[in-house]
C-alpha cells in the first residue's frame, strides 16, 4: 500500500494550477436537535435516511485521567459494561446483538469513556433498550471480569511485540510526566493485576453519570418519535456527582530542554521514533489554521516530512506529523521509522525539515494547495451516520458547535501567509524537543546521545510513573 495520510511540498507549482481554488465544498452540517433531560444528559438527534441504519455515540466523563494509581481502571470499567446486566447476562447479550448484526462497543480513552453502536433501524427498540441497560445497570460479573483481566494482562505483554503499538504511550508519559494526561489508557501489568471487580463498581458509580455526558443518535428515524423513546429510556438514570477533582485542568509541566527516552528492544531491526513537544488544546482559536499548516508540514503525502524522508531519500515508508489536542492541553509529534542503520540520517532529516519550516516558512503556492486539500478532503469526514454521531458527541465534549463545520471553508480560506508565520512560530516546537525511540540500544544509543540526555529503559519492563 502506498501510505495513508501523509503531507507537503515547497516547489514551483505550474502557473495554471495557481488559478484553481476549490469552492465546491459548501458543506453544511445537516439539521439536528439538541436537548437536555432533567438528569442532565444531553441528547443530540439527527435524521439521515440514506440507509435504514441507526448509529449511536455516547460520551461520558470516565476516561483514564480518573484512573488514580490504578492505571487501566477506566478501560476495564468501560469494557466491563459489556459483561452484561440482570436482564441481559453476557451470553444472551452477545447472542442477541450478533443475531441482528448489531454492534455495541464500549471503550475508554484518555479523557472520556464512550459507547458506539450501529444497528438496523427496525431494531431500534431492542438495541436502545440494551444500550440503556449497559449504561445504567451493569452488574460487573466477577467471572467475566476474571477472564477479561487475564486477556488484558496477556495483551499488555503482546503489545510489546510491536513498537508502533506502545511508542505513543511512552511519548505521552515522557511529555506529560505525572500529569494525568500521561496516564496510560490500557494500563500496566502491575496495576491491572491489582484491580478488582469492586474497583470497577466504584469507578462506575462515581463516573458514569448522565450529567456531564451526552448521547447522539443519527440515522433512519423521525426526531419526534426518537425524542419520546430516548426520554423514556434515559430519564430514570440518576444524576451523580463526580467526587474526584478535575486533575486534567492542572497545568502541564513545560519541557526545559531536549531529552531522549530510549526504549531498548533487543530484536529490533528498525528504529521507530517520535520527536515532539507540547501541542494545543481542542478549543484553540487557531485550530483550523494549525491543521492547514500541519497538512503542509506532515499531514499528507506531499508534506515536507514525507517528501524528504520518503520520496527524496527512501529512508522510510512514511513520515508524518500530528497535533493531538485534548481539553486542556495537547501534544505535537513527528512520527516515523527507519532501518537501524539509517537512524541518524532519518532523525537529522526530520530535524532539518522542522528547522526549514521555522526558517523559511511556507509559500503562497503551497498554502493554496493545502487549503484546497483540506477543503477537498473535508466532506468525506462527515459522510456517514456513524461519523456524524461521533462529531456530535465531540461537539459536546469539546464545546464547539456547527459553525466549526459550516464556517470551515471560510476559515480555511481566511488564512494568510503572514498568519502562517505566526502559527509556525507559536505552535510548532523548535527546541526543547522530546525524543522517544524504540530500537536496538546497542546500536543506536550513541546516536541518541547526540540529541540530548538519554534515559534508557527496556521494552519488557514496566513503564515508569514518570521519566
Amino acid at each position, binding site marked *: *500500500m*502506498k501510505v495513508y495520510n501523509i503531507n507537503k*511540498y515547497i*516547489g514551483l*507549482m505550474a502557473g495554471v*494550477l495557481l488559478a*484553481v481554488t*476549490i469552492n*465546491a*465544498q*459548501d*458543506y453544511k452540517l445537516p439539521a439536528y436537535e439538541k436537548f437536555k433531560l432533567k438528569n442532565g444528559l444531553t441528547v443530540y438527534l439527527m435524521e439521515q*435516511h440514506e*440507509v*435504514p*441504519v441507526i448509529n449511536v455515540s455516547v460520551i461520558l466523563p470516565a476516561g483514564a485521567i480518573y484512573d488514580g494509581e490504578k492505571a487501566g481502571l477506566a478501560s476495564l470499567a468501560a469494557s466491563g459494561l459489556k459483561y452484561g446486566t440482570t436482564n441481559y447476562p453476557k451470553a444472551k447479550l*452477545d447472542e442477541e446483538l*450478533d*443475531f441482528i*448484526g*448489531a454492534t455495541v462497543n464500549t471503550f475508554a480513552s484518555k479523557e472520556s469513556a464512550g459507547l458506539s453502536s450501529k444497528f*438496523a433501524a*427496525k431494531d431500534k427498540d431492542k438495541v436502545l433498550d440494551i444500550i440503556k441497560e449497559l449504561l445504567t445497570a451493569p452488574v460487573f460479573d466477577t467471572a467475566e471480569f476474571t*477472564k477479561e483481566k*487475564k*486477556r488484558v494482562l*496477556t*495483551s499488555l*505483554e*503482546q503489545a*510489546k*511485540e*510491536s513498537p*508502533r503499538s506502545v511508542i505513543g504511550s511512552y511519548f505521552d508519559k515522557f511529555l506529560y510526566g505525572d500529569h494525568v494526561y500521561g496516564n496510560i489508557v490500557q494500563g500496566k501489568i502491575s496495576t491491572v493485576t491489582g484491580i478488582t471487580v469492586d474497583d470497577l463498581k466504584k469507578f462506575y458509580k462515581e463516573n458514569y453519570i448522565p450529567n456531564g455526558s451526552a448521547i447522539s443518535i443519527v440515522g433512519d428515524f423521525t426526531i419526534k418519535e426518537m425524542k419520546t423513546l430516548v426520554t423514556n429510556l434515559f430519564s430514570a438514570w440518576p444524576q451523580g456527582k463526580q467526587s474526584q477533582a478535575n486533575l486534567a485542568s492542572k497545568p502541564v509541566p513545560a519541557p526545559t530542554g531536549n531529552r531522549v527516552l530510549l526504549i531498548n528492544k*533487543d*530484536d529490533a*531491526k*528498525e528504529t*521507530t521514533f517520535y520527536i515532539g513537544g507540547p501541542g494545543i488544546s481542542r478549543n484553540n482559536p487557531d485550530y483550523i489554521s494549525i491543521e492547514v499548516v500541519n497538512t503542509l508540514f506532515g499531514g499528507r*503525502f*506531499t508534506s515536507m516530512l514525507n517528501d524528504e524522508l520518503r*520520496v527524496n531519500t*527512501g*529512508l*522510510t*515508508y512514511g513520515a508524518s506529523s500530528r497535533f493531538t489536542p485534548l481539553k486542556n492541553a495537547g501534544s505535537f509529534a513527528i512520527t516515523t*521509522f527507519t*532501518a537501524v542503520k539509517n537512524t541518524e540520517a532519518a532523525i537529522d532529516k526530520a530535524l532539518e525539515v522542522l528547522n526549514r519550516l521555522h526558517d523559511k516558512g511556507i509559500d503562497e503556492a503551497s498554502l*493554496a*494547495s493545502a487549503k*484546497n*486539500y483540506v*477543503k*477537498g*478532503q473535508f*466532506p*468525506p469526514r462527515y*459522510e*456517514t*451516520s456513524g461519523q456524524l454521531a461521533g462529531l456530535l458527541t465531540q461537539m459536546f465534549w469539546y464545546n464547539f458547535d456547527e459553525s466549526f463545520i459550516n464556517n470551515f471553508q471560510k476559515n480555511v480560506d481566511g488564512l494568510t501567509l503572514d498568519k502562517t508565520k505566526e502559527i509556525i512560530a507559536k505552535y510548532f516546537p523548535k527546541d526543547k524537543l522530546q525524543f522517544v525511540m524504540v530500537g536496538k540500544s546497542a546500536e543506536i544509543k550513541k546516536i541518541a546521545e547526540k540529541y540530548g540526555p538519554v534515559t534508557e529503559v527496556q521494552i519488557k519492563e514496566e513503564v515508569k510513573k514518570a521519566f
Partner: protein
Amino acid sequence: MKKLFLPAFLLCVVALQAQMKADDVKTFTLKNGMKFLVVEDNSIPNANMYLFYHVGSRNEHQGITGLSHFFEHMMFNGAKKYGPKQFDRTMEFNGGSNNAYTTENVTVYTDWFPASATEVIFGLEGDRIASLSIDPKMVESERGVVLSERSTGLENSPWNLLGQSVQATAFQEHPYHWPVIGYEDDMKNWKQSDLEQYFKTYYAPNNCVVVISGSVKFDEIKKLAEKYIEPIPAQPDPPKVHIVEPPQTGERRIVVQKDVATPYLNIVYHTPESKSEDYYALTLLSDILSSGKSSRLYSALVDKKQLATSVFTDYGESFDPYLFGFYAIAGKGVKDVDLEKAIYEEIEKIKKDGVNDKELQKVKNQKLMQFYNQVETINGKSNNIGTYEVFFGDYRKMFDAPAQYNKVTADDIKRVANKYFSKSNRTVGILKSNTED
C-alpha cells in the same frame, strides 16, 4: 499492502428499497477495451475513481517477486506530462488524495477528490497509463521505500512472518507461494528492463476496470474518458497464469521463531476461487466460525476455554484457488498444541453435526448490515462494484448475492466443511519464542 475486501450482500427485499440497484450502475467500454462503471451519487460534493488492474504477485515469477507491488509505487513517480512528484502534487493541489494497494491478484489505485476536480484526475490517470517514465533515480529511492515497508510490516506484526511462511508451505508451485511484498533479495535486484516489460504487459487499458462514484454525471465521465483515455492503445492480452497448484495429499507443518509473549497459530486449507459455487457457503461458514462474540470459535476458545486471546478466520477473493485461514493467538501459559487441538474440535463439530438454523440466519442478518456499511459511502460503492466486476466477472453479481446467500442451507455449510477441512488438505503454522521444544 494487502487488504482483504469484504464483499457486499443484499439479503432481503427490505434492503433493496432506496438502496442501490443494478440499474444505478451505468457502464461503457472504450475502443481500447477499458471498461468504466459509473454511479451518480450526490450525497457529498465529492467523487472517487478506483482503477482495478488485473495484475498482482500471481503474475510474477521467482527473480522478480514483489515487482507488482513495487510497480504500484512507481506509478506515482512521474510520467510524460506530470513528471516526478507532480502526480501527487497536482492531485493534492486540486483537493484530491490517493492511495493504492497490491494483492496476489490485483493492483488497485484509488483517487478521492472534490467532484470539481474530476477532469484533472482523468488527466493524471491518462498520463501515467499512456506514458509512465521509469526514472532510474526514482527507482533507487523507491526501492528504499518498499524495503522499509517490508521491514516495518515484519517489525510490527508477527502475523506477517507467520503468514508468509504458511503461504509458502501451502503453495509449492503456484505463484501464491511468495509474499506480495517480495523476497528481500529480489527487491534489491529488480532491473530497469523488468519494470519496462511489466508496464508494457500489464498496464494496458484493456487490462483495467475503472469505477467512479460520486457527484458526477455519466455523460460527462464518458466524454472525459474518451478524451483522456481512449487514445491510449490496447495491448495484447497478458500471458495467462498457467500453473495449477497440485492437490495437497498430506498435512504440512511449519514453525518459525520470533520473540513473542505467547504462540501465534495460523492454519489454512486449500479452497476454491471466488467464481466457485462454494464461495457463498464458505463465506458464511467463516462468519459462523468467527464473526462476533457468539461465534463458534470466539465463544469456545476465547470465552469458555480461555485458550486464546483472539481468534479469527478469513476467506477472501481470489482468481485461482486460494486458502481458508484460521488465526489464533494463545493465551498466557497455553501450549500451542492445546490451542490447535481445540480449533480442530470446533471444526469437527461442524463437520459432524452441522450448524443450526438460527446461527445460519444470524450470519445472513450480519451480511445485510455489512452491505449497509458498504453502500453508505461512495468509496464503499466503488470498492464493491469493482470487486464483483473483477473477481466474479460481473458487477451485477453484487445484486444477485442476496439470492445466493439466501440459497445457502445448513446442509451446504456442513458439506463444504467436510469437503475442504480435511487433515491432508491443511497447512499448520506456528510462531513462538522457543522453537527448540
